[in-house]
């Protein structure tokens, strides 16, 4: 009677079980290539060699992510938010971008940062507690991770507006989670993006969880449908299918570059690990559902596919493994090699021109510290 009636009463919210037949999928979990009349064209250029390169990226991302978790367990990092399970969503989208595009993410997008060119040391700096930002945003075309959930979607929209004003066809991409979609900021970002036809891509990794809360608590309806209400075209894609993710991202980027405004991509995936290394998912997550998702692994399916095509020789596989290992070891060494920042840097960069009051606080504190040096460090 009213336009649609989809609410299913007051049932308890749940996460979704795979697979959802409505998702765009080009590579099935068993590695079969599924034909798609629309999206195939967008990954025509992805031959075996290029797919192998995406595969390698995913293997590297998984490997350094595991390493970072280990480093946290060893007390070398304060915290780490694992990306396990989300490799395809991150690599497939990030590898669709141009260097002059600009990326705004949350904290979990280390696979994206890797693709943008973040060095191993850049990936761990924040999580070791040495800095509030890991890399130079201008160097890799990517803002440093945003902890305030959803805030970065507005930044991406503003940046995109700026691209339009500048008359360039660069695109801003906002990564955010399923939980973030509840935030007012994300709504307002879509309102602004639609109103001004901003060249921005909203890339939602629906990994089914916001810490302990299943996506069904945020929404009883596919998240991608939200965008339609703003007049923003959207698509739900198999987030564990690197090809499908890349295809959808390219479509959205192309739209933006042509001045046709924002798009919304929901990459449906699953957070296979804890929220962060501090989290205990055994308190809330169903291990059986996790098992079902394990069968959808984003890396395994590419591996299978490449094998079927005879495109993954043992040598090549070994090479990939070694590359991943090397990156992880670099990350490890960088972590161990990192020394604590100098005490007085706590006062740096509050304002471009420091205030007299803060300079006073700095010099008093310097004198205070010097007092201790005098008393305890006399024989060093």
């Amino acid at each position, binding site marked *: 009677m009213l336009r649609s009636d989809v609410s299913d009463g007051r049932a308890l919210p749940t996460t979704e079980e795979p697979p959802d037949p409505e998702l765009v999928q080009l590579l099935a979990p068993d590695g079969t290539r599924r034909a798609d009349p629309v999206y195939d064209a967008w990954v025509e250029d992805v031959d075996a060699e290029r797919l192998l390169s995406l595969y390698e990226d995913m293997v590297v991302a998984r490997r350094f992510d595991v390493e970072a978790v280990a480093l946290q367990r060893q007390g070398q990092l304060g915290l780490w938010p694992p990306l396990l399970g989300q490799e395809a969503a991150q690599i497939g989208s990030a590898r669709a971008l141009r260097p002059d595009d600009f990326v705004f993410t949350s904290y979990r997008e280390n696979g994206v940062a890797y693709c943008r060119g973040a060095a191993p040391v850049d990936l761990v700096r*924040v999580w070791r507690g040495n800095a509030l930002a890991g890399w130079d945003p201008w160097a890799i075309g990517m803002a440093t991770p945003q902890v305030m959930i959803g805030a970065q979607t507005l930044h991406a929209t503003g940046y995109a507006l700026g691209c339009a004003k500048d008359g360039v066809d660069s695109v801003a991409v906002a990564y955010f989670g399923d939980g973030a979609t509840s935030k007012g900021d994300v709504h307002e970002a879509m309102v602004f993006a639609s109103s001004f036809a901003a060249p921005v891509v909203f890339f939602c990794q629906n990994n089914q969880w916001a810490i302990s809360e299943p996506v069904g608590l945020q929404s009883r309806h596919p998240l991608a449908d939200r965008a339609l209400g703003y007049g923003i075209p959207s698509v739900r894609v198999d987030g564990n299918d690197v090809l499908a993710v890349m295809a959808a991202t390219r479509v959205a980027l192309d739209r933006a570059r042509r001045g046709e405004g924002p798009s919304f991509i929901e990459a449906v995936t699953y957070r296979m690990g804890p929220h962060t290394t501090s989290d205990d998912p055994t308190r809330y997550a169903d291990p059986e559902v996790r098992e079902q998702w394990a069968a959808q692994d984003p890396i395994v399916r590419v591996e299978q596919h490449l094998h079927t095509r005879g495109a993954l020789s043992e040598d090549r596989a070994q090479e990939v493994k070694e590359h991943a290992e090397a990156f992880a070891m670099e990350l490890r060494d960088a972590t161990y090699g990192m020394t604590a920042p100098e005490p007085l840097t*706590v006062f740096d960069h509050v304002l471009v021109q420091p205030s007299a*009051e803060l300079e006073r606080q700095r010099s008093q504190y310097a004198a205070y510290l010097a007092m201790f040096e005098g008393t305890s460090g006399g024989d060093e």
Partner: protein
Amino acid sequence: MATTTMAAALGSGLRRAMEDDPRVVLLGEDIGRLGGVFRVTDGLQRDFGADRVMDTPLAEAGIMGVAVGLAYRGFRPVVEIQFDGFVYPALDQMVTQVGRLHYRTGGTVRMPVTIRIPYGGGIGAVEHHSESPEAYFAHTPGLRVVSCATPQDAHTMIRQAIACDDPVVFFEPKRRYWVKGSVEDEVLDDALPLDRARVVVEGTDVTLVAYGPLVVTARDAALAAADDGLSIEVIDLRSLSPLDLDTVETSVRKTGRLVVTHEAQRSGGLGAEIAASITERCFSLLHAAPVRVTGFDVPYPPAKLEEHFLPDLDRLLDAVDQVMGRQHSLTGWSA
């Protein structure tokens, strides 16, 4: 009388409040099945049901505005803000609604909303997880703001806050969650009122005012100073708005010297208000200008630098030296 952590004491206080009043409902992110990221609400959803312990969508303004609506309907909502830094999206509803509806409606609409905020630093966390935003709320009329420092106060004060007909912003010093202490299931009528400070160490030379996480540090400072022949009176402020200035004044009338400490940034922090108010009240009795020992005027720094931001024992003792007019004092203006 049991010995528990502050986190557990808060949990039992919440439980007790829910038992005492069926209109008490809890709202927040991850407070249900998970029991909260600090496990303060552990077991409450299991025992009181999802209708009274609600995991909410990830939207702090939403949580706060929905709590306002529940209060309109006669409930006593208890909101958990997961970490200090995430209160800002909810600040609009707190300042313009929660704190004003009673005034706006000439006393007709009450807002008995309790807003729990684990706050403060010292836990080696990432950005937005170590902040002390209490001054924003203490400057906001219509809100009560409190902070607990011991398991017993945590337990009693959370019950008092929920029973209070005014909105209460309840700051929980997260780095003290695991400190243990004895907790009695106090009769609320016998307890020190929610808006009163407490003298936790008596002394005659210097008044040292602290709250939340730094009360422990202030006690330690009093002990250390005693070795040095100095008698420090430590006051746990407990109520940050309204301030119990009478208790502080009584102490300063005795000591003539005031040190105030908090983790929040110095400029515009509570220390300024306390120093200014006590100077007004005790001007002719003061031997020295009140001294503030606070976080510096910088955003909360990365974990590896937080020891250089947070007030600690030595900085407190240094300030005590300063108000005593001793040598080697390096904090405060006159350095």
